[in-house]
């Protein structure tokens, strides 16, 4: 039977028809998505993924990814979506098991772009040993989205010892940053705003599974809390922890690991690396005296080779979060205010 309306079956772009549930939708899902992410659960194509029983308690998290541009030095929206969700589980003390994947595509998205993102997703999932077990696709009219939005949810199994959490922070606890800060935000800014930097700074987008594992195995209960320092950067994590614990978190500017590129661009644009997003760097609080050991364990892994003790937890003082700068005076460190707007001179 001939369809009265011609459907561009072999078009190179996502069309609204791809989202209408018909043949094109099925083709897109089966030939591109399921194919790229192949695993038995997905292949079964059930309405809901049927998952095996696990022994421990579960952790569940969800996140949406709307990064522009879709590709940037050091990663893309696909790796970001997988690592972002996995890292959220890891820092909560869970071993990530399953992810769901929802794709919201803008009409006109080139299929080669979709394929590249799916490839990244597949690789990141494989590398971290998680399975993508359920998903959804939607197509929205041109202009209603910025190319591609991704939503993921992740389920993990909590593994003892689970970090006791920010509310248990105590005076003398040591604060650690797992790597150089601000790389993701600066990488995105540099490509998005065409700053013309050579070479382009690259994002730290990556998995924190191994570093968390090594900390768990070697430090056990000495680790109080962990958090990946994404939007709002290290400063935002410190604010949250200070609020949860009622303590003052104090860091020293001079011990913060900041790469020369990030530092240079931040100086130039009047931004503070402490407020800039990371995607593979976390903050860790350990009991007093455990900082040096934790750092030496972290340094044995390439992804956290730049880990540093950066500060301590104190009784609540002049402000919830403080920073010691050059001359040793302790000053409040403010919450980041909206998106940073670069200054002019």
């Amino acid at each position, binding site marked *: 039977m001939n369809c009265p309306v011609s459907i561009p079956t072999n078009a190179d772009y996502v069309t609204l028809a791809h989202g209408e549930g018909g043949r094109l939708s099925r083709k897109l899902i089966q030939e591109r998505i399921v194919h790229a992410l192949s695993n038995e659960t997905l292949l079964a194509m059930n309405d809901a993924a049927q998952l095996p029983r696990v022994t421990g308690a579960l952790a569940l998290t969800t996140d949406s990814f709307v990064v522009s541009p879709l590709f940037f030095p050091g990663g893309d929206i696909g790796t970001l979506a997988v690592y972002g969700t996995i890292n959220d589980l890891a820092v909560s003390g869970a071993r990530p098991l399953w992810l769901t994947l929802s794709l919201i595509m803008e009409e006109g998205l080139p299929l080669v772009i979709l394929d590249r993102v799916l490839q990244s997703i597949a690789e990141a999932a494989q590398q971290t040993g998680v399975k993508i077990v359920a998903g959804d696709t939607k197509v929205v009219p041109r202009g209603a989205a910025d190319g591609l939005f991704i939503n993921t949810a992740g389920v993990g199994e909590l593994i003892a010892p689970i970090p006791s959490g920010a509310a248990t922070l105590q005076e003398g606890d040591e604060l650690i940053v797992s790597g150089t800060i601000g790389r993701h935000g600066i990488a995105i800014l540099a490509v998005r705003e065409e700053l013309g930097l050579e070479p382009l700074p690259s994002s730290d987008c990556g998995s924190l599974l191994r570093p968390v594992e090594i900390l768990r195995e070697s430090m056990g209960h000495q680790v109080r809390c962990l958090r990946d320092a994404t939007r709002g950067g290290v400063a935002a994590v410190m604010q949250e922890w200070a609020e949860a614990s009622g303590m003052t978190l104090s860091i020293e500017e001079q011990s913060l690991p900041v790469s020369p590129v990030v530092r240079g661009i931040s100086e130039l644009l009047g931004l503070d690396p402490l407020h800039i997003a990371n995607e593979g760097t976390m903050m860790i609080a350990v009991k007093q005296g455990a900082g040096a050991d934790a750092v030496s364990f972290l340094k044995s892994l390439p992804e956290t080779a730049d880990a540093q003790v950066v500060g301590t937890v104190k009784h609540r003082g002049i402000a919830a979060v403080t920073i010691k700068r050059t001359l040793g005076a*302790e000053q409040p460190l403010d919450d980041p205010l909206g998106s940073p707007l670069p200054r002019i001179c």
Partner: protein
Amino acid sequence: MKYLDEYRDPEAARLLLDEIRRVSTRCWTLMEVCGGQTHSLLRHGIAAELEGTVELIHGPGCPVCVTDQEAIDFACQLAQRDDVILASFGDMLRVPGSRGSLLDARTAGARIQIVYSPLDAVQLARKHPEKQVVFFAVGFETTAPATALAVKQAARDQLDNFSLIVSHVRVQPAMESLVQAPDNRVQAFLAAGHVCTVMGYESYESFVEQYRLPVVVTGFEPLDLLEGILACVKQLEANEVRLENRYARTVQAAGNQSAQDLVREIYQICDRAWRGFGVIPEGGLELCLEWRQYDARTRFSEPALPVLGIDECRSFDVMTGHLKPPDCPHFRKSCNPESPLGAPMVSSEGACAAYYRYGMTASH
């Protein structure tokens, strides 16, 4: 960035602080002209360290802070036109005009694009031939050459969809208007290093002569600032009045000649309204006649909007050293970075924002 670390060495800073305390026999009042210096002084705790030894007045040196409300209103007005993309530096976006900020205009649908250099705005005009791209050109002598280059680039590319709201301001006339005020408290100036990089500092000779006040060209890192302060204090203590350059690694007496030529070619000096100050004679730069077609005010026949309401912000008192930001009745109350009453709270270099961020300091 080794280059920076050298100028942040805590040991050397301590020595300089001690030296400043040692040579001061009374509390001197200095003005750092530039907002970048204000931030560094507070961020590194220098102002607090020197309390009682040197009083630092935070000068008018933040171009965002002194941009007249009328210019911001005009920028918002143009941005709301369907055929216009307004290009602006980021920190102009939050500054309140009398009818809201550019950010408010953007929320209401205006097309506003953040750029990092005036040439980015030209690039935008090239990319969008169907739109008029208007660049909001604010800044001191430092940014004026880059804007001039953008105009010449647009002319070379024969772009007829690029224009400017020229709000460039000149530092020295503002310093003059400050010291001429009957209640002037400034005893010496830390001149802004980067303005001098472009304009040189020879022109300060006559200023020093005429007003009998020391001027020391100073950089932005803690050690730069401490050296500048020490140089001022030494002159004051010795009852000397000189022009000194303490930023020799960047600043030459004659400045950057080609940048100055560019400025002379494109602009002419004009009287300009400074926010908080009123009109400062010779306080600004405007496009000269042959480049006037790139002036947005020439290009668009928008009716001039009257500036609404009264400005409650006490920025003038802050910039003249008669009010410390924390003593402003609005500070941290009705005025904060999220809802600023005045520009000094908005700009990353504004004095009020600096106090807001770094104000409370505990000693070590």
